[in-house]
Every structure is written in C-alpha cells, then in structure tokens.
C-alpha cells in the first residue's frame, strides 16, 4: 500500500522504482516530472495517486516498444536533442502526446506544446527539430 500523502512523482520514483521520471522543483513550475495520464501531459509532482484510480499512466519507461525505441526517442538521439538528458523524459512524453493529436504540428504548435518544460542545455532548437523529424518519418 502506498501512503496517501505521497505524490504520484514520489510513488513512481520511490515505490515503483521508475526513476526515469525526474523532478526539478516539486512545485509544478518546471514540468520536468511530466508523465502522461490517459495520453495527456500531467505534472506528477502535483498529482495524488488517490485521484488517479483507474487512469492510465505512461512514464518514459513505457515509451519504447519492448527494447525498440519510439521514433521520437530515435530522433532525439540522432539530433542531439538530449544533452544532459534530465528534461528529456518529460519532453519526449509531451511531444508524443502532441503527435498523437496533431501528427503534422507546425513549429509554433511544437513550441506551444513544449513551452511549459524548462530545458537549460539545448536552447530548445534541437528538440523542435527532433519532433519535426519524428513527425516527418511517420508520414
């Protein structure tokens, strides 16, 4: 049993060993802890597991199909879109949610979708390019 006072972030990382989900503030400010709940981006540091009964939660560990990386993961690796790699899980999951609802996003739509997640390494450009590459390849 998980203590009721623990956040989804804490349960994922500490009780389930899913440390691919990161944290940068635990106050809902940086989105580094982003996961998908029913396919939509969600801040795990502000979510209480008790509120999420019956919902589907996807973390970075669930992004690959077995050991075959998701096309977004391949594009991020190929273009150097992950430098330190710390915001990368949240970026990838959020980009996946975007491509699921808009398979051909414009650069502005990509910027809008990822705007909540802070990255201090890349200047964001390689991330935009990687999302575009993955989208192009899917077509």
């Amino acid at each position, binding site marked *: 049993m998980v203590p009721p*006072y623990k956040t989804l972030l804490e349960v994922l*990382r*500490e009780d389930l*060993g899913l*440390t*691919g*989900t*990161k*944290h*940068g*503030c*635990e*106050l809902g*400010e*940086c989105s*580094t802890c982003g996961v998908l709940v029913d396919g939509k981006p969600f801040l795990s540091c502000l979510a209480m597991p008790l509120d999420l009964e019956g919902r589907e939660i996807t*973390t*970075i*560990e669930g*992004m*690959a199909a077995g050991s075959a*990386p998701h096309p977004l*993961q*391949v594009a*991020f*690796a*190929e*273009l*150097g879109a*992950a*430098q*330190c*790699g*710390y*915001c*990368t*899980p949240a970026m*990838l999951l959020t980009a996946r949610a975007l491509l699921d609802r808009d398979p051909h996003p414009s650069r502005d739509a*990509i*910027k*809008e979708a*990822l*705007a*909540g*997640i*802070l*990255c*201090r*390494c*890349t*200047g*964001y*450009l*390689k*991330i*935009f390019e990687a999302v575009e590459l993955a989208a192009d390849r899917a077509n």
Partner: protein
Amino acid sequence: MASDLTERLDEFSVVGKPLIKPDAFAKVSGQTKFADDLALPRMLFGRILRSPHPHARILHVDIDRARALPGVLAVLTGDDLPVKFGILPVSQDEEALAREKVRYVGDPIAAVAATDEWIADEALDLIEVQYKVLPHVMSIDQAIAGGGESIHGSSNVHKAVALEFGDTDEAMRAAEHVREDVVFFEGNTHLPMEQHAAVAQYAADGKLTLWTSSQTPHYVHRALGKVLELPMSRIRVIATPNGGGFGGKSDIFSHELVAAKLAIVTGRPVKITLTREEVFYAHRGRHPVLMKVRTGFTKAGRIRAMQFQSFLDGGGYGSYGVASTYYTGALQATTYAIPRYRFEGVRLFTNKPPCGPKRGHGTPQPRFALETHFDKVADELGIDPVELRLRNLPSPDSRTVNWLRITSCGLVDCIHKVVEGSRFLERRTSMPPGRGLGFAVSSYLSGAGTAIYWNDMPHSEVQLKLDRNGGVALLCGAIDIGQGSDHILAAIVAEVLGVALDDIQLTTADTDLTPIDLGSYSSRVTFMAGNAAKAAAEKVRDRLLTAAARALRCDPDDLVARDRRIYRRTRPEDGLSFAQAVQLAETDGGVVTSTGSYTPPKLAGPYKGSGVGPSPAYSYSAAVVEVDCDQKTGEVRVPEVWIAHDIGRAINPMLVIGQVEGSVYMALGEALMEEQTFRLGLHKFPSLLEYKSPTALEAPVMHTYLVETIDREGPFGAKEAGQGPLLPVIPAVANAVYNALGIRIDEVPITPDKVLKALSEKTKRVGPKSVPTFQFPPLIKADVPEEWKGK
C-alpha cells in the same frame, strides 16, 4: 576499389561526423542514473537546517529535541565537522555547517539523518538556534563603506588586484580619442534542471563511497579527505552524470560533506537531495560586477591603451572568487590587440549566497562592458562597429601585452560569417521601427593553464585496455555534464584505433578506477582529456601495428588501423582484423593497455597574478542579434541570432552546434530576464516560477557557423565550445536595443522597466554613473613582452 579504399584511409572515419553520442539512448529512455535516482538498502535521508538571517552570530544550537524524535538517527552541528575547506587553497573559509557565524540566508547550520524525508524535515523544525543578528551588507557600496562587523576578518575586501602592462597613463595622454564608460552586470544563477544530490555509504571495512552530481569529483575527493580527516585512499568519489552543471556543480558543497559524515556516524547509506530553493542558496553563480572601462584610441580607431576596473559582489564566501576577480581582467587582451593595459579588480564579501563560476566564468561581465563601450566609440569616431573591431584584432600565433599566448585565431572569419549572414551593415541603418541589430565579439579559454591547487602533474589522464575480441575499455576521470565529453573521448580513441564508437566502453569519473581529470569546468575537457585520450590511443595503436607488421612481414609504417581492421596501405587486400592484432600484441607482451596524459605547457607570464588567464588555446566567437522592441511595454524580443564560433576543429559538429545554441539561449536569458536580486537580505525569487528564464516560446531562429582553424595543440585541432559562444550575445543584445530605440541600457539584464525608463530619460540611458571610491593596492608593473615594446 583498392584506390578508393586507399583514399578513404587518409580521411577521418569518426572525427568531424555528427554521430550519435554513446550516452544518447540511455538518456532518451530515462535509464541514465542521476544521483537522486540511486537508492541503497537501509538508506537514510538527510536534510540541512539553513540560516534565516543574512548575517548573525550563532549563540547556541540545541539539537536534543530533534535527536529524540523517533526515526532520527543522527543530528550534526558545526562542531562535528570543524575543519574548514574551500575550492581554492587560498580561500579555505567555509565550514560544512557554520560554527560561529552565518553569512547569508541559506548558510547551513545543522543536519539530520532520518528514515524518511518527512521525519527529517520535522526534526529540522525541532532544532533551536539562538542568534545575535548583525547588520547585513548587500551591495558593493555597503561592503566598501564597511561600518558593522566584517563578514570575514577585518574588512569586507576578499581580494584586490592591480596590474599594469606598460605605462597606460602616458599612452592615454597620447591617444587622440578617449572614452570612459561605467556599466553594471547583475548576478544570475546556473539553474541546472537537476538539483544537486549526493549519496554516501560507509562500509564495514571503513571505506567511504560518495556518489554525487559534481563537475569536479577530484576536488570533492580532496575536500572529503581534508574535512573528514580520512586518507584519500579510504574515500571513493563517483560523479554521477550531471543533469546540467554550467559551473554550478564545480565547487565543494556542504551537503556532500554532511552526507558523508552522516553515513559514517550512522553506518547506513545517506542521501541528501537539495530542494530547488536550496539550489538557489548553493549558487556559486555569476558575480554581480560593476565596471569602469577607459580606452584611448587613435583617430583611425586603433587602441592605444585601456584601463579597466571591476568591483565584484562575491557573496558570503570565497569559492572561486580569487580566480573570478582575475578573469574579469584577463581576456580583454586576447580579444583585442591592446598595447598598454591596466587592470584593477576587487572582490567584496556580501551577505548573499557565494558567487563563483558560471559559464564564461568572470568574462561575460567585462565582455558586456567592452563591447557596448566599443559600439559607443565607433559612433563617436564615425567608424562602423565591425570595422572598429577589425582594426584591433589580435593575430594568430602572437602574444598579448599581458603575456597570454595565442595560437589559432579565427575571429576575422567569425566576424565575416555573422556580418554577411545577417547583412548587418546593409540592414542596421534601415531597420523598421522598434527593430535593431547589434554586433559583438569575444574570446575564451580552452582550459585553464594552471590547476586549482599548485602542482606539476598532468591535468588529464586516460587509460585504455583492449580485450581479445577487439573491445576497448576507456577510463578517464572526466564527467559528462551533458556537454558530450563521453562522446569526445570515445570518438578520439575510435578514430585513432580505427574502431567504431560502439566498440568503446567508458568508465568515467570514479576516483577508485579512473585516472585523474581535473573536472568539467574551464572548457578544458575536449582539449585536455581529448589530448590525453589521443596520446593513449596512439601508444596502443603503435603496439598493435608493430605486432601486426611482424605477422604480415611488412613495415609498421605501411599499416593503418581502420574499419576494425589493420590494412596495408600499399596492398589493402592484405591485413588482419583489429581483434587479431590485439591477440598478437597480447601474445607478444601480455595485457594490451596504455595510458596517455596531458599537461598544458607552462604559459604564465613573469608577474604575480599571471596564473589566471593562460590557456593552451583560445576560442573566438562573433554574434549578430536582432531585437524587436515594444516601446509601449518596454519588452525586448529576439527573433533571430547569427553566431559564429572558432572551434579549432569540430570533433562532432552536431554536439558543437548544440553547445553553441545552448550558450546563445543562456546568454539571452542573462541579457533579458535572469537576475538574482535580494530584499531585506532575502533572495527575491528562489523558485523556477519567479526566477525568469527563457522557455521554448522565446527560442529565436539561430544561424550557427563553425569556423575551423585546426589549432596546432588541440586534439585533431579542436578547441572549446561550451562557454565562449555565450560571451558576445549579451552585449550584442544591448547594442541591438540601442540600434532599435536609441537608448543605452548599461545594465544587464535589460528588463522592460529599464527600457521604459531610458525612453523617458533625457540622457536616453539607464545604468550606473560612477564607481565607488576604493583604494586599490599599488600597481604591480609587469614587463611588456618584447613584441609590444615601443608600440
């Protein structure tokens, strides 16, 4: 076919190619283990009690109630860790937990280890501290004025330096045009997305292991030995991949020492992860610097002399501050040919989190001063700002007036790339309303020429061990902080040995296993660890070729390692597999291993203070920034940036461009929004929401140009990329705002309130008017190098 192969054998197979870095898939799958991802059986959680006062004497610390709380296994105070430490041997002024006095809000006082973080937090609340609150000092002016109790010792002056190269007063009198400017650069912080974390384990055999998100595990190793009073052989430091560093994880931190001590006291593993608020207090970021620059020119715009003063607001402790102080004066002369130069700098203690090295360490501030100053001079002389720079550039293979040796210099090419790419000269006089273009240039180190502690040993070392199947184990103390150092090491070794990146297994930054690398700071890893890796690989390659030559009955000079094979150049169809060559070498001489080391040449000039500034090579950058200013709101947006960087040679152009783009991004944050300011002794915004940094929405279009000058001492000609490209961007923004609105914001960051204020002022300027009166020490008058005599 054979001739195609022969031609290909003379080209690079790995170097210069945009290959996927070795740690990329671990990162995109979330498998990279950062320090806070580690969990050990029976692990305890540590928390640190921090001062609520900016300046106070500690009268009494009562830990009895905290210790009695169920679940608490240890409580430490300063008396448990009494040995002082500091990153520089000359500034051993920190305590893991303050004993007599606190010097900023956030200064560590006590620590607990408990079975979970909630209990640890509760225990902190039960610690009672009695303080005698002292008046606090929050500015350069207050620190110089003094009055109350000094923060350290008998004055708030941490370090004051005064150097002169030739008679600047005489040269200034002879100058036809002299201009003086006073500008201010506000402090800001690194803001890595990963909060610092450390896990310590003390085993039954008396051996301590610390996993830590550190850029400098070797220095942490030394500090642990000193503070814990343990032999370094009983301590193992493993740096975990850093979730961003930018200089913010290159100091020794309280939580690293405290986690280790708590593990020793409790006999159980202890983890301490800083909260985001604590990361703001750990800081060691950009110094606020007030600067006065005075330059004398000829009518034709050639520099005769420069006099530069800097006043650094250092915060509560020394940290890297002595080096930072010198750095605010050192690189003026690597960017411009300055015949006579005077530098006076002072670092003051204030009651703020300690400042230290952030990307560009001590040089973005003077770069802002110089590049805005030059723009104003260009206007006055009626010379365009590009031409004024071109008339004053240093030459390749030259020496500066302050004795810094320049090898390759691609600044002219960098300037032409960005000026042509942006059509700067054609467009800047005809921009639409609110739009402007700004230009600036810079130079930076490829690694500091001297170590942090005085010694003559190598700065970087690499060990290779080849196995019978052709795998290559590569061991090096360097830590990847996202910049791609793992890739650089692997790429260089793969190139020399003619194997694939996949054949290289990296073990890095583990003081038990890996030979020394001084750390991921000072833009030194590609140059220094790269040279060490190349030396190690060449040694072991020669051994393989010798063994292969014997088997093939040919001259080793006829052999080349490539495609996991050893080819004969003259008969490429003859040859051996790489693994066969390893087996032959192993048969001949046992374990196939090699080491390589890099020690920078001794480059310090003949004067006191010459240790900061020398580097085996300097990188160069130029930038043009376009701004779009809203005159009603004062908001400045950056739609487009052109940036050129002299990288020497790009070992991996994709990673280099990544460093350049990241530098531009960070510079735009510093130029327009990031600042670390205080009110009533408190940090105004120690949170990611309120400390404004650029998001994806602010990302401009960037045009990046790499200029390759093939430095004669860099590995395959490479120089640095991680810091230099940040430098020209901040002043280019300021110059662009002037071009757009005719206002001078002589103070970074350029926030909307300052823009509106400048628009309403008669002077069309916002910025400091003067520097405080301060008695600098007598000038150390250094000899001028031979080539500058009589100039």
